[in-house]
């Protein structure tokens, strides 16, 4: 691939590699030789898409949130009345609290369990490549479809979990020769607290592989010499983890956690399939509540206001991430 210095000096544009057929084409597109022009041309498709389907809808969403727009009715400007109306509603604040609790619990669980799994997957045993490939399945398969399997596993009458728990219960009864009474088991999706537990569990189940594989990529960059050095100094496995592994994969871990935070915060599918926000609105997240108001009830203005309420949280995260990445880059 090395051009001889001579040809570069004498005839940079007409070295023998180009045939005459290509020459006119080169002249026609010579304005593309300008770096700036080419840059803008190449950016055009992406920017066009962003303007039409992200920037414009975003401003439209801001406008809608300030109107009393209903489906197939003209919109009237009503100022901040959608927001003041929401702020007076208990369901709205319940939804905000649910979203924060759900996001926080699920992200922490995913990070801790994902880290654990990553450490396990980092060992070398037979079939490890196969195991790594298989554990990603929950992340790859459509969430609503695996969510359906969970709905069935949480079924009020035929829950496989309750079947297992009942079996344990009865076996204990039999072993102790005692009578604990009839075992009913939790109403997984029928009781507000259990329903929240269930959606967190399913979201965690789906997200663990993503964390584990991303953390694993980080673990594999840690030089093994450091662990050998730790061994020589007599460090325990736990000490090696805290003082070698954690500091070294922190940069990746932070990005993964922030990324997952955004996706979890905006989750829709798990709740839509498992509970539709119920029972008694106890598991609504901002996204499902926005859908409920905007699409199911046709109140587009209020729905847009609820969806937009996510924006300040996301903007903070994005801003922080931008500054963090820039700091990492400059280091």
């Amino acid at each position, binding site marked *: *691939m090395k*051009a001889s210095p001579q040809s570069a000096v004498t005839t*940079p*544009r*007409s*070295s023998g*590699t180009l045939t005459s057929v290509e020459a006119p084409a080169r002249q026609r597109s*010579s304005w*593309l030789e300008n*770096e*700036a022009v*080419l840059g803008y041309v*190449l950016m055009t498709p*992406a*920017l066009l*898409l*962003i303007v*039409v*389907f*992200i920037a414009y*809808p975003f401003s*439209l969403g801001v406008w*809608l949130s300030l109107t009393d727009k209903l489906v197939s009715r003209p919109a009237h400007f009503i100022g901040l009345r959608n927001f003041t109306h929401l702020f007076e509603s208990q369901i709205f604040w319940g939804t905000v609290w649910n979203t924060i609790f759900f996001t926080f619990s699920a992200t922490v669980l995913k990070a801790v369990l994902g880290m*654990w*799994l990553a450490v396990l997957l980092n*060992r070398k045993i037979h079939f490890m490549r196969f*195991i*790594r490939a298989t*554990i990603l*399945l929950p992340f*790859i*398969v*459509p*969430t*609503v*479809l*695996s969510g*359906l*399997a969970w709905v069935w596993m949480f079924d009020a009458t*035929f829950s*496989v979990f309750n*079947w297992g728990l009942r079996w344990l219960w009865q076996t204990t009864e039999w072993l102790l020769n005692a009578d604990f009474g009839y075992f009913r088991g939790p109403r997984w999706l029928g009781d507000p607290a259990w329903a929240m537990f269930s959606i967190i569990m399913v979201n965690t*189940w789906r997200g663990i592989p993503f964390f584990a*594989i*991303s953390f694993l*990529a980080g673990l594999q960059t840690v030089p093994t010499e450091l662990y050998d050095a730790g061994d020589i100094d007599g460090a325990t*496995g736990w000490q090696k983890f805290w003082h070698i592994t954690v500091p070294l994969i922190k940069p*990746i871990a932070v*990005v993964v956690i922030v990324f997952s935070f955004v996706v979890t915060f*905006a989750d*829709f*599918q798990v709740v839509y399939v498992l509970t539709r926000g119920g029972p008694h609105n106890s598991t609504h997240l901002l*996204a499902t509540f*926005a859908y409920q108001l905007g*699409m199911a009830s046709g109140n587009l203005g209020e729905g847009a206001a609820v969806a937009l309420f*996510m*924006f300040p949280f*996301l903007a903070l995260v994005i801003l922080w991430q*931008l500054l963090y*990445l820039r700091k990492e880059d400059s280091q």
Partner: protein
Amino acid sequence: MEARVGETFRKRLIVFYIPLFLFLVALLFPFYWMLITSVKPDFELYNARNAPFFVWHPTLSHWVQLFQNTLFTRWAWNTLCIATASTAISLFAGVLAGYALSRLTFPGSTSFGIIIFITYLVPPTLLFIPLASVIAELHLLDSPWALILTYPTFLVPFSAWLLMGYFKTIPRELEECARIDGATRLQAMTKIVLPLGMPGILSAGIFSFTLSWNEFLYALVFISSPQQKTIPVGVVSELMKGDVFYWGALMAGALFGSIPIAFVYSFFVEHYVSGMTGAVKG
């Protein structure tokens, strides 16, 4: 990390084999449950007494019902077409933008990079209500084009971001040599950078395809007639109608909606994983 010096088998069993086994069971059990439910006859399915983990009289009647009495094959075809088209559009726009942002300096290029990053983190749930109005204005409601054109809103930023990182790893000198040999900028891109960037482009493509296959919210909001639906929305909205759920057919739908994407994934595991981790690292 090989088996470490001084580690007994019993210790390895407790800290390694048992936890790994439990993780595998927890992560894969729902898929086993889909499969076993879809081949159970109703009298076994709705009997709380017998052990639910096995099937005594396997039947394919739920599968037959899924393919004959529902629009499942139609949904599968829709999903395939929509995922393929939106992936193609996204790769086109994403490759060009990724190249421009990683290789060319022009006024505003840094801001464009930041815009791509911000849009990458904007979740679809933030925009679906106004986006539905935009789709209605364009007279695309209930058309596959509604999805083919809107899926790129999250696929293009992702692909551009991933490919930006990937193209940066290709030595600039290769391109400079080609330009010295008389190649235009466009030729340097299409003949040098794109072929060398193929693994990255493939990663972006595989990842985009799975994301489109799995998308739910836009498909739920923009599509209303049963014939136009995608698998995720079709199974959830058309098979879950009424008060009685036919769990056998539902689980067959979940199973056959998952198998194609798992099949595609199985051929491109490495690309998928590098797409996933690359997108995070940037």
